[in-house]
């Protein structure tokens, strides 16, 4: 692409022709305020917040739609531009309800932020405001307040251009213009809640999160969605050790700015759920009762020792991290010495789209396989293990966190086992059959990595603390440390479960059986994976970073001419 030379606020910049001023400025750290422009949506040019002066042009121009041209001299901060911006801010606010004290958006509102940054802080408007409907349910997950809407059309464009469904439109004209759904339509596409994130004001709110917390009371941790093999990059919002909200985090290689509603709503509530396994449990007289870790571990170790190697089977998990699965497969192969190891895949054929959602409903099936959770030569695969239990050949089963009893045909055979130990975070159909339930930390409580369907390694980070994490803050972000006992986010004082990362539990069982796996933290486990597994060679937590890193391509079979 031909390049051009332009000047923005005195800085000379070389830029690609055809790009817009706002894009070029952004890439060079010059922020031009904007409401309607969004990097992934078409340009609509309606808010007029991005007006800039271009020398030799009589009128101010909008930076979001004006393409750079050679020799262009742009001013984004001079008096004329500041005046125009003040005017736009004043216009935007005259009919705005100024609901900030009761508005969910407050604290992360572009209008509020810009009011501080780019307005005079004073209004000359002395007339009656236009009133519009409030508290409208646009769809199952999104609430709308028409008075707060600044009519930027981001939500409309999102539905049209990203979700690919025409559900939103404006009606009426002038300052009576109002967003609504088309007749007979609801805002119910599988990505509907992204409009909440891109709405620059509190007009669109998350029906699930509304009024649960002020944003400044929460702490945010960068992590990965668990809803499918896409592994959308997300932020977990936590207050008082309770996960309250997931929001997408930009990663152009994985999910852009988006996530699906299923991921946003259905993949974190189990962390706080009533049916959480709060501590290890052993079945006594037919009932699971909480015990200490030492007792649970000793029990699993002694039970597993009592079977012949061929009578034991093990199931890793596509819901567990690479670190969990790696230690697990080492334990199975080196300590238990059984060849019968596999994991269950959860593929829902056809349940995917060309936006984000994948038919593989687990976040780490590639990682589990890649680190070696697979039958050893001559060992049993998952189907064979189930068949083996049925036939009485397999008498003991040790499984990482996965509700395997929900797989058709499995629940029927589990009662035949003589011993069944499972890692679980919540009570589920599998824990009903378990002799020992090992309280597993959820994705929100542990450090680790997962591999998405693109073979990209991505980091999980703990956002919620457990008793164990209180002692070793493995992977906690500094911001969370700083918040320790801060009055707004008393996470150190909130409910904490006696749950542990699966790899640590496995290592304890190994130790009880006489084999020491010595790692202090998840990144040490990862370093070992990077040494031992070809596709992970050269990777480290540092290299994986916030945005992930690709696994090495599988070596291609040599081609013979």
């Amino acid at each position, binding site marked *: 692409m031909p390049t051009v030379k332009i000047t923005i606020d005195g800085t000379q910049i070389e830029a690609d022709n055809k790009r817009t001023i706002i894009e070029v400025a952004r890439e060079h750290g010059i922020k031009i305020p904007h409401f309607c422009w969004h990097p992934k949506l078409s340009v609509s040019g309606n808010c007029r917040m991005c007006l800039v002066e271009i020398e030799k042009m*009589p009128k101010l121009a909008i930076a979001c*739609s004006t393409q750079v041209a050679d020799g262009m001299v742009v001013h984004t901060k001079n008096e004329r531009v500041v005046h125009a911006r003040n*005017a736009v801010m004043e216009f935007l606010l*005259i009919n705005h309800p100024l609901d900030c004290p009761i508005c969910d958006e407050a604290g992360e509102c572009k209008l509020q932020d810009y009011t501080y940054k780019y307005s005079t802080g004073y209004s000359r408007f002395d*007339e009656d405001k236009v009133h519009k409907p409030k508290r409208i349910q646009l769809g199952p997950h999104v609430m709308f307040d028409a008075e707060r809407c600044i*009519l930027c059309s981001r939500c409309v464009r999102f539905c049209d251009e990203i979700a690919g469904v025409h559900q939103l439109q*404006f009606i*009426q004209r002038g*300052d009576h213009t109002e967003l609504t759904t088309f007749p007979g339509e609801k805002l119910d596409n599988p990505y509907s809640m992204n409009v909440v994130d891109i709405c620059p004001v509190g007009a669109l709110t998350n029906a699930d999160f509304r009024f649960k917390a002020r944003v400044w009371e929460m702490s945010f941790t960068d992590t990965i969605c668990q809803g499918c093999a896409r592994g959308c990059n997300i932020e977990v919002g936590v207050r008082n050790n309770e996960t309250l909200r997931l929001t997408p985090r930009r990663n152009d290689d994985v999910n852009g700015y988006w996530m699906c509603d299923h991921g946003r709503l259905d993949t974190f509530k189990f962390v706080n759920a009533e049916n959480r396994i709060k501590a290890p449990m052993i079945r006594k007289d037919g009932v699971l009762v909480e015990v200490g870790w030492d007792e649970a571990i000793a029990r699993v170790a002694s039970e597993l020792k009592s079977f012949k190697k061929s009578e034991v089977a093990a199931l890793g998990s596509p819901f567990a991290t690479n670190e969990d699965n790696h230690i697990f497969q080492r334990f199975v192969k080196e300590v238990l010495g059984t060849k019968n190891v596999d994991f269950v895949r959860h593929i829902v054929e056809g349940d995917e789209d060309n936006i984000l959602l994948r038919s593989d409903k687990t976040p780490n099936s590639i990682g589990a396989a890649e680190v070696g959770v697979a039958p050893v030569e001559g060992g049993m695969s998952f189907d064979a293990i189930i068949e083996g239990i049925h036939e009485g050949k397999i008498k003991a089963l040790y499984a990482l966190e996965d509700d395997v009893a929900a797989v058709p045909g499995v629940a029927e055979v589990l009662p035949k086992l003589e011993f069944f130990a499972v890692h679980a975070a919540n009570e589920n159909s599998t824990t009903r059959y378990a002799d020992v339930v090992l309280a597993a930390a959820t994705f929100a409580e542990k450090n680790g990595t997962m591999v998405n369907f693109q073979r990209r390694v991505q980091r999980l980070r703990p956002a919620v603390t457990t008793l164990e994490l209180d002692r070793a803050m493995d992977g906690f972000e500094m911001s969370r440390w700083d918040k320790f006992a801060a009055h707004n986010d008393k996470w150190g004082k909130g409910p904490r479960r006696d749950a542990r990362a699966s790899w640590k539990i496995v290592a304890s069982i190994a130790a009880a059986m006489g084999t020491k796996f010595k790692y202090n933290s998840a990144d040490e486990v990862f370093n070992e994976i990077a040494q031992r597994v070809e596709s992970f060679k050269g990777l480290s937590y540092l290299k994986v970073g916030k945005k992930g890193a690709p696994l090495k391509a599988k070596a291609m079979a040599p081609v013979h001419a």
Partner: protein
Amino acid sequence: MERYILPDIPNFHEIDVYEQHGGYSALKKALGMNPAEVTDEVKKSNLRGRGGACFPTGLKWTFMPKDNAKPKYLCVNGDESEPGTFKDRQIFEFNPHQLIEGTLIGCYAMGITTAYIYIRGEYGKWIKMLQKAIDDAYAKGYIGQNILGSNFSTNIYLHKGAGAYICGEESSLMESLEGNRGYPRVKPPFPAQRGVWNCPTTINNVETMTNVPLIINKGWEWYSKIGAPKHPGPILVGISGHVNKPGVYEVATGELLTDLIYNYAGGVPGNKKIKAIIPGGSSTMILRGDQIEGVRMDADSLKAAGSSVGTAGMIVMDEETDLIRVISRISKFYYHESCGQCTPCREGTGWLWKILKRFETGEGRMQDIDLLVDIANNIEGNTICALGDAAAWPVQSMVRRFRDEFEKRAKRSEAAAA
């Protein structure tokens, strides 16, 4: 002056009568020329658009790309919704075939095979009349396949608006044609680059296109000598307000405003003095009655006087007119018609009207006067389309030229409050 747009011939709207008086001969002549020559002829004639901006028509036609595989379109703008403007409907009623002929010539010049005539939806009677004219022209082979046995084919479709002034703005008109909400588009890209259906498009006013057959028939030299040299040709002037004979008058450009008012429109009832006039439709700047002496109905003269030709819809107001009510009503119109897309116009038009309404009901304050100007200044030039400017100009000019009226009101209401 002889009339060329609305000739004084009975039943001229009927195709036979039109043909008897040389109708469609310009089309025949054009088909014998090459398209670039036709455009050149229009360019040299200095015809300027009658839709409000006085843009040179021939120049506009040259913006259409020549080596483009996409189809091209012509939109003829008959939305005519500006207060004070009612001249295109005379063409629909009295001379629809000359409009059709001009449209066909434009299509030929620009290599266009589809033209839309976008007509104001409220124009029930004229919609029927124009449709009949189109049907008759099809029947006679002037529109359709291989027009007059040539290789040139074009269809003309009549499209009804649904009652929004904003759909007269060219890019909004195209959105409306496509079945979308009437939101103006951000320019660039301009219509000649990306117009209707994302294809190159030219938009011209009804009256503009009605001038084209004259130019082809009688040549650019003849045309360019009519009226004001830089803005030549016959022009339809709609005169309303306080005049004895309101109506549409065809004159040559450059006619004195005073002639238009006193000779054509028969002067002011009761011989009252003129307090103000709006020369070209409600969006043009208002002039004081004492500013119009020697001013002519052409682009340069009105610009020098501090206003513009617009659509030549002149509103005359006598000395007893309550200008505060006038400007309040004009502002209400732009407030009502703002499409609501861009911030300054959406919010500013309502604000202007609310303040002006207060002046009308005796609640205006001194500080509101400068505020009005400031709001108008903050709208002007900062919007997506020119409706923002159209809302700002009347207010700016009214305060500038009749500040005393505002001050009188403000003093009166402040005294009443005290």
